[in-house]
């Protein structure tokens, strides 16, 4: 019988069927998708192309394709969920006291909503260049 040491890998799966279990599964699902999406995005931006050629009009031309807008928005949704839920875990581990926790968690969620709105807005509204 193999005994599992919870210190050797990720967070152990939460018991029951509540919100925390839902988040635990979503962290893994978004993680797998990000393995593909985020590494592909980094490779495209740094290996296929180079930051020296990526100005605002280059991005507007790239977003002339609906597929790249969908790709980038999907990546944005995955990374916002995964990274903010990850930092939520970190805050839960280190921030002590009800007031401090309320303050840091509220700030975290406000920043997440602002980035969700700003990122979605630019993907939806950047004009298509002919």
């Amino acid at each position, binding site marked *: 019988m193999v005994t*599992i040491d919870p210190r050797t890998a990720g967070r152990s*799966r939460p018991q029951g069927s509540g919100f925390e279990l839902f988040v635990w599964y979503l962290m893994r699902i978004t993680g797998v998708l990000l*393995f593909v999406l985020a590494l592909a995005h980094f490779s495209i931006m*740094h290996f296929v192309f180079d930051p020296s050629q990526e100005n*605002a009009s280059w*991005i507007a031309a790239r977003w002339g394709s609906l597929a790249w807008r969908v790709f980038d928005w999907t990546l944005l949704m995955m990374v916002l969920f995964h990274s903010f839920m990850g930092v939520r875990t970190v805050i839960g581990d280190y921030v002590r006291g009800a007031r401090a926790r309320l303050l840091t968690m509220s700030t975290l969620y406000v920043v997440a909503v602002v*980035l969700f709105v700003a*990122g979605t807005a630019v993907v939806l*509204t950047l004009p298509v260049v002919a």
Partner: protein
Amino acid sequence: MLLRYRAREGMLAWAFHRISGVAIWLFVVIHVVDIYLVGGDPKAYNTLLQVYSSTPGRIVEVLLGAALLYHALNGLRILIIDLWPVMTVYHRALWYASWVIFVVVGIPGAVIILRPVIGPALGIGA
């Protein structure tokens, strides 16, 4: 902290995962704001992109890429152990395997990003 606890593989894997994760989160916050500028203030975005393609910018991008690659590979290791608990026995072997992939993929990646910086010095052009 890492030195005091005489950290072994499992704890180091966890600590690096956490540090790289927070670093990537910080970049994501900056990156969504800078992409917002493409619509909001394209001139400011172009100025910022000159920072990204400068020498210090490229060094930070190599560090970002390293954080991303480590977090992705170790995340895969966590998933393998979650889905297939028997693999817990081999968690160290999996960690070392992730480092092999990290070096094999990461070194050429770093060279490509730094080529405009190190290329002229090595005589291979930019």
